[in-house]
Every structure is written in C-alpha cells, then in structure tokens.
C-alpha cells in the first residue's frame, strides 16, 4: 500500500480543537470491559471532565450559531443539536483520534466533539474563506478530515453506506480504526439504512451505527410513519445484531455503550446498532418553531437537558463547581474568539468557484 494514500490512518496529523489532549480519555475508551454494564457507573473522572467539556463546547457554539442566524449572518438552513450534546460528547470521548465520524446535516455537535475548530465551523456557517470547507459546503456539510470528521451528509441515508466503506477500508488496511455513523430516527425508513446495515453485518465491518432518536423527522413524529416502536433497535435483528436502546441524554451511558461497541468493532466483532433516545430543544431547522410537539413532551425533555444534568452529576460526584465554572469560562472565551475569527474571515473570491472539483485543483471539463 502506498503511504500517501493512507488518509486518516495515522494519528500523527490529528489536530484536536476541543482543548483536550487526545488519547487521555482514549485509554479508557479502548478498554471495552469497563463499560460492560453500560450503566455509566464506572466512568473515570478525567473522562467525565472531557465529556463535560465537549458538551459545553457544543452547547456554546450551537447557541452562538443560533445568535448568528438571528442576526441574519447565517443564510440558508441550519440544523442545531442543542439537547443532543450527550450523544456526540459520549461517543467522541470514547473514540480513538483516528476513528472516522460520519454525520448528517445535523452534524455540528459531532464535528465539535471530534475536535474540529469552532472558528472554522462558524466561518463556514457565515460563508467565509476560513470556513472548514472554504465556504463551499455550508452548515449541512461540515467536514474536518484532520480530526476524523469525514463529513456531514444532507440526503437522508446516503452516509450509512459510505461509513460502512470507511470501515471496510480500515479492515482492509488493518488499521484498527472504527467508523462511527450518526443518523436520525426518521432515517431508519429509507432504503440505504437497510442496505448498509446488511452489508456491514455480512462483511463484519468495524462500524458503529448510532441512531439519535429525537422522536421527530422534520415536523412529523417518526412513530406515526414507522412500523415499530424503536425505529433502529427494533430492526437490529434483521441484521443479526443486538437490540440496544440507551438514554442518549446521559453521556456516561453513551460513553460506556460507545466503549463496548468500539471495542467490539476493533476486536473484529463487527458492527453495532445503537439507538440513543434524545431530544432536540429547538425546531428541526432554523425556520421551525417546533409547534407540532406536545407541550408536556417538550417540558419533560427540557428537565432532562444533558448539559445542566451532567453538571449536577459531576458536582454530586465531588467535582468542585469552581473547576466547572473555570471550564465554562474558558469555553465561553473560546466561543467568543471563534466568533471573532469567523466574522473576520474574508469572503471567498469568485476564483473559488472553479476550484477543487477535480484532483488537479481546477474545474475544467474540456480540453
């Protein structure tokens, strides 16, 4: 195998912008035995702080993104993950720096959790050249290969096979990498879900499929158009997989589940399908007030907001609130700094248009 083609198969090049030292938590993460009960009881303190930090960072950046909409600086659409931080934080903390993440248009949280630079993310949202994709992709396509964030995909289902392919490549290269693929409850009814799960199972691929079940597709309750109660887990048997439903708002549970699934994948045990129950606090996308949701449901879930819940837990476990306050302030400064960098980025020049369609850097289709 030629070295230059081994994209992402080396951890050297990884630059993590979460502010966490990569590998700190990973030591635990790769030890699958830790998490066998998947009840989150045994998570180490430094892991918990890493998770906390990731959650706070996501919440901070997503709220900032929302402010930028309101100020009409983010055009187009945007799908925030406020309320769904625990899934991203729990998984990313358990992943190896060179593992792959594949996400949907609702993908900011996963990019941030993997360590993608917040300034680059915000700059992408406001369409600047210092955006992660130079302004070319926008909110729905956040990609940051340097941190293993292999993209956000805006057509429902499309990335499930692609994630399987990254896992296939990892297996082929014996790199020990795992591919983790996040998607929504509504996505379980599209054909690509079925095809990808079957292929992953048959080829025993090191891929973890994670359904973030936030109960809704766009404005429709997924249960009303799905034949089973648990859109992902109740289908696991179709692929010879274990049925796994977890509390997606409890980052410790997510983390320990992730450790097991990642460990199994790395050990040659093949794919997993995890259904994580969670909730988005806002509407589907920027324009949506989310009125179709019963008030009680929203209320009930708001009391289970993973961010304050986790803070309480850490304090209960003896972490000083001053330590968390310091972290919060650090993150808040980081978000402000990222916002500044983003808004100071240059608008892309028109020459950008004919760039990077092809490997030669250009976009010519003729000779």
């Amino acid at each position, binding site marked *: 195998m030629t070295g230059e083609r081994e994209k992402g198969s080396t951890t050297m090049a990884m630059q993590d912008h979460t502010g966490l030292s990569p590998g700190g938590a990973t030591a635990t993460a790769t030890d699958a035995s830790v998490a066998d009960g998947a009840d989150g009881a045994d998570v180490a303190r430094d892991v918990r702080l890493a998770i906390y930090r990731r959650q706070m960072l996501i919440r901070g950046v997503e709220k900032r993104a929302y402010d930028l909409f309101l100020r009409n600086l983010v055009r187009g659409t945007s799908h925030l993950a406020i309320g769904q931080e625990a899934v991203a934080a729990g998984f990313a903390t358990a992943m190896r720096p060179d593992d792959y993440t594949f996400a949907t248009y609702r993908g900011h949280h996963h990019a941030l959790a993997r360590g993608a630079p917040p300034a680059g993310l915000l700059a992408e949202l406001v369409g600047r050249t210092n955006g992660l994709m130079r302004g070319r*992709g926008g*909110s*729905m396509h956040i990609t940051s290969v340097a941190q293993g964030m292999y993209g956000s995909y805006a057509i429902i289902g499309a990335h499930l096979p692609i994630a399987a392919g990254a896992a296939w490549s990892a297996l082929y290269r014996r790199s020990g990498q795992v591919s983790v693929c996040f998607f929504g409850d509504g996505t379980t009814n599209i054909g690509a879900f079925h095809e990808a799960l079957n292929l992953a199972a048959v080829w025993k691929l090191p891929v973890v499929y994670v359904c973030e079940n936030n109960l809704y597709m766009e404005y*429709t309750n997924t249960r009303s158009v799905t034949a089973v109660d648990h859109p992902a887990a109740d289908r696991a048997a179709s692929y010879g997989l274990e049925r796994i439903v977890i509390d997606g708002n409890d980052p410790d549970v997510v983390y320990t589940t992730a450790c097991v699934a990642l460990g199994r994948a790395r050990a040659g045990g093949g794919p997993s399908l995890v259904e994580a129950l969670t909730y988005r606090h806002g509407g589907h996308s920027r324009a949506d007030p989310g009125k179709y949701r019963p008030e009680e449901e929203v209320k009930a879930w708001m009391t289970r907001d993973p961010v304050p819940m986790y803070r309480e837990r850490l304090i209960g476990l003896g972490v000083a609130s001053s330590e968390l306050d310091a972290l919060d302030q650090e993150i808040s400064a980081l978000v402000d700094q990222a916002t500044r960098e983003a808004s100071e980025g240059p608008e892309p020049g028109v020459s*950008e248009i004919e760039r990077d*369609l092809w490997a030669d850097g250009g976009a010519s289709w003729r000779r």
Partner: protein
Amino acid sequence: MAEVTYRESIGYGMAQELDRDPTVVLVGEDVGAAGHVFKSTVGLFERFGPGRVFDTPISEQAFVGAAMGAAMTGLRPIVMLMYADFFGVCWDTVANEIAKTRYMTGGQVEVPLVIQADNGAGLRMGAQHSQSVESWAMAVPGLKVAVPSTPVDVVGLMAAAVRCDDPVLVLTHKYLYATKGEIPDGEIVAELGRAVVRRPGTSATVVALGAMVPEALRAAELLEAEGVSLEVIDLRCLVPLDVSTVIESVARTSRLFTVEENPRLCGWGAELVSIVAEEALWSIDGPIVRITTPHVPVPAAPVLEDAVLPRAARIAERIRAALG
C-alpha cells in the same frame, strides 16, 4: 382575481384538482398537518383530510413507487418530492419504471401521476439542496416536464399535469416562492408544451425557464437602454418542447441565447441549440450562446452562489459581448 405568492400557488393549484377529481390524492413527507417544508400545502390537510392527503415516512422509493402503483390502478396521485435533488434516491422509480411502463407494456398500463419538486438554487442551501434537475428528466423518454415561472402558470400547469394521462414532473423553483402574481377567478388549466413570448423583441431571441425567466427579462431591460431589443421566451415545458415558437422567433431575430440555471453540460439549452443548428441553421447569424451555471456543484456561500447562477447582469453582459 386573487394575488398569491408563487409558494401559495402550488397549494392553490393542487386544491383546484383535489376539489375537482376524487381520484386525486396528495402524498409526500410533511405534506399533511405540517403544510410542507416550504409551506406550500398549508390548509390542504384541513380542507381535504387524511383520506386525501397522505404523510409518508422518509422513503422516496416507497412513496413514489406507491404513487406509480396507485396511478396504474385508478388514482391520480400528486407526489411532493420536496427538494428536486431527492430524485437521486428514487431515480430508478422515476426513470426506469414510471417513464417506461406504458411503452414497455405495449400501452396496457398507464401512469397518470404528477411529481412536484422544489427545484433550483438561490436559497444558500448548498450542493445537495440546490440543483436544477430538469435536464435529468428531459433526457428520459416517457416523462413530461413542466417548469412554471409565475403563480398562474403553476396553477395552470399543475392542472394540466394532473389531467394528463402521462407522468408529469412539475418543477417549481424555490427562488421564486416569495414572488407574487394574479390568479383569475374560475378554473385555470394551461396546456403542456406551449412556450410563451414574455417580451417581444427584434435583436435576439433569449430562451429561459423557471427562475431564469425574470432574470432574462431584467437583462432585456438593461439592454433596452442600449438599443438592444431582446425577445424573451419562457419555455414553460421541456417535454413536450415547443420548438416551433423558438424557431419562429429565431427566424425573425437570427440570434439565439439560452439562459439555463442547470450546470453547463447537456442541459435543455444544448438540446434546443442543437435542434436549431439542424433545423434552422440558415436563420442563424452569429454564435449561439448558452448562459448557464458553470459545470460545478452549487456552492453554499452567498457570494459564491450568486456568482455561479446566471443573473441579469451577467446575462446582459454575455449577450452584449456576443452581439457586440
């Protein structure tokens, strides 16, 4: 007479047909109580109820295919696909099944359905939610394709599509959704395959479609001041294609330009230019120029998106240079 937005005209046209014919049903994601992602069906669910308006899972193959099966057996479904980019996930159903079935079965089976989709760019949606795919459909024998540029044409072409016994794609352009237009009282039905001269002129013929029609008209205004008189044709349908209106115009102006939002290669403009180059070459008195999006995906950043799309200034500039 009512003034409605282009966005509202979509539901307006569907309501006219749902009202008229009980075999018409409406189906798609969030088309029911939610009133569609673009709010284009607001009120239809309340008016026609869950027996006529069907919400679906995210399963384009399933519901487009189901619409085909229903159309084969007595219904006239209107499918709302949402973003036109989603033709990708049901392209087999559309291109291999819906388009070919009547022909393959020797005329035994007919598939009278309508697929409405939100086509085109301009809303900063990025490469997977901004495509103009009308030429994908035009290239497949067996599909009719309507692309209205005004609210009244949305209503009229929707009616024509629903009443047509062939499958028709109605591609509404989301950049136009906020624009407004008058809709006369009474039943509105247009004819598929009739272009319209939106502005008569003598210097050159400019053929445009969908959201490019207002741009071409604005370009014509810009050039008017310079003494250039553009005839602007709104094609309105790609299949059937109103070749005669174009050739008749070119015979008078002797120059042809197309204004296409689709990426450069193999668009409807290429087809039209080729027809003219075969059938009316001697009418032509100078290079035939297609003004298109460059052959790249649609970028997300506003400045980039604005730069790739044909806009009045670029259209005018290109025509000026060519006529120069």
